[in-house]
């Protein structure tokens, strides 16, 4: 199981949980599982998210591997100038 840390305003979409557990080997699977377990997360994921895996921020890639004991944070999609 991978512990996924959400940003705190997402708690209202997960029944108050800020850390949720999912089974996933890639960033794409992770997002799919998040929505399956917490349908409320569909909206923020559709609006755009990044996934930080062990501190490396993955902005878009859905096939990035997630090691078993990885630290995973869901983040808002980053934008640049």
């Amino acid at each position, binding site marked *: 199981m991978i512990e996924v*840390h959400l*940003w*705190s*305003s997402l708690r*209202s*979409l997960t029944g108050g949980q800020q850390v949720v557990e999912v089974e996933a080997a890639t960033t794409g699977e992770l997002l799919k599982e998040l929505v399956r377990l917490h349908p409320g997360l569909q*909206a*923020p994921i559709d*609006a755009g998210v990044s996934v*930080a895996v*062990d*501190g*490396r*921020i*993955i*902005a*878009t*890639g859905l096939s*990035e591997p997630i090691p078993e004991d990885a*630290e995973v*944070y869901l*983040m*808002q999609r*980053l*934008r*640049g*100038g």
Partner: protein
Amino acid sequence: MALDDQKSIFTFVGTRPDRPDGLDKVTGRARFGADAHAPGMLHGAILRSPHAHARIVKIDASKAEALKDVKAVVTRADFAEVPFEPGLEGEFWNVLENVMAGEKTLYDGHAVAAVAATSALAARDALKLIEVEYEVLPHVTDVDKAMEADAPVIREGAADYSVPEGMHPNVVRYHESGHGDVEAGFAEADLVVEDSFVTEATHQGYIEPHACLGSLGTDGKGELWCTTQGHWIAQKTCAALLGIETSQLRVTASEIGGGFGGKTTVFIEPVALALSRKANRPVKLVMNRSEVFRATGPTSSASMDIKIGMKKDGTITAAEGTFRLQGGAFPGAPGDMTAMCAFAPYNLTNVRQVGYDVMANRPKQAAYRAPGAPMGAFAVESVLDELCNQLGLDPVDMRLKNAAAEGSKASYGPTYERIGLVETLEAAKAHPHYSAPLKPGQGRGISCGFWFNHGGETSVSLALSEDGSAQVMVGTPDIGGSRASMALMAAEILGIPYENIRVTIADTASLGYNDVSHGSRVTYASGLATIKAAKHAVEKLCERAAAKWGIPVDAVKWENGCAVPSGPNAGDFDPLPLADITADMGATGGPISGHFEATPEGAGVSFGTHIVDAEVDPETGKTSVTRYTVIQDAGKAIHPTYVEGQYQGGAAQGIGWALNEEYIYGEDGRLQNSIFLDYRIPVASDLPMIDTVIVEVPNPGHPFGVRGVGETGIVPPLAAIANAVSNAAGVRMRQLPMSPPRILAALKDK
């Protein structure tokens, strides 16, 4: 990714050769957006709303259309109202609404109609004959007022899932993040400082106005030449707005006269194409400066509350920030980015940050160098400076004590990989500037700054010529000398001279999709792709050498521009230079090219520390920046001169933002300062030399260790200058810009 395979000894990288486009740019030969002509070309002009908020009752263009010089008039009806698959939704709809008003005009300068005529003068004359009947609506331009209960609603239903119930409809996105227990943290503090800050909207101020030349036939095939940071996004957006297939529109990026984030979207390009389709002739559209200010994408304005607790030894016990950003009449103000970046330089146990995206009757904000970060840093670093002053702490020591490092938890959540903030602070402490005595009336300011950086879709091709030279095709417009950096990186891998490599910005028909030149991504992502494309070509060169020598390809390696046997057992062959392999490549297997495409995901975050000395004239309120030092982590500087240039440019723009630049709206909701005389950007006589220190803490996510450098440089200046001015004037400055009237008022209230 391990650092083990990262290259650290270089032949070409880190040198400072002349840029390949230098000659064209000093002789006037370089072709920018407005420098293009086409046979049969018409000139376009755009009619803009004089009202901040109004319903369009009627547009009557019949008098304009009757003129013989006028060949087309377009309004919103000429764009893709009927959704073209996959449909105009979300951001595309916002862009269309911004490019040409629909039912309402949402800000002063919003486009309502456009004309194409046989000359620029005829087009401008024709605009005066278009009659628009408006029903003027109440407007709001201030961020705090736009959130009040009685504020006019700009668009019902624009808020997304994130906005808690009970907020004004003008609040369209909400972000909250952090960790720990801030209340407990404040209770542990010896001193808590709480304060509020305001920054005004500024403009990127690129010297080249938006310009394009578009041609679109009734067959749905088109050509577009434009000044842009990203021609693929221009292609995709224009195609969607006009209801044509993306691949049928070929977009060529001109030389770009500055962008800084402001040329990452489209404004006039779809209009030129719509006019062209209607007139059946190419149409050139060029904005004037006033249009650039009124109707492109300035920054957000911001209103912010900060609370930070500190122990007497300088340890931060808790930090809290609320950041309200106004981003014009559309969703998009980067309140979330402000919140996530504001405390990122510090290793905090207890932190909470809240960001709001608020709409108002102003032009749709666009990115401007690290969008959202500078204003947050201004507020946070001002409070840190105040804490240092009140506790008698050295501002660099305090920051070193709390600085984030590898393994510490970022304020936005994850654990940092290898980062270079501590190294920039140590360099600041050791820099002669930091220990230089100040003259009476001067103050010194320090600030740190953070930006994420970005990877993005990237595609690069590299082709070798028979004579052994190489051409590299990249898809990221060169704004600040990136062609030089690409050539250096290709030279490093191929082992041929820098001068033998020509780098071209390919058009959309010549390369796969490339994300925009933004997010400090060009040297990182296009650089990474150039390195990999060059390695791809080297693999093929080694194959040809192996075939020639009759040995296995893994017995061949590439060294100093030659194929050589990989060891004594591989055989005894003289090194085979690249040019000897390419000379007969047609007969040994065909042309040799390398290609790489990916969305690299290892951009690596970046930090900087700035030191500023400022002097305030108490009579006039005028501030002079007397000394400025930028220290920033570049990961690895490919062309150090152009890295310095990014640092200096960021600092100069920050000085403008801090001291003079602001959008000033009247009670009528109209922009009052839409020319450079009144919107005053720094001129040569305003600035000192800007000293730079390039810190190099390699980014684990790039083969040479590159971190983007374009954006971070604008994050610290606002705060560093505000701290210097506050220390010089003896009063905390809480609003930017610190223009002379605001300084005089602050001195009076002291």
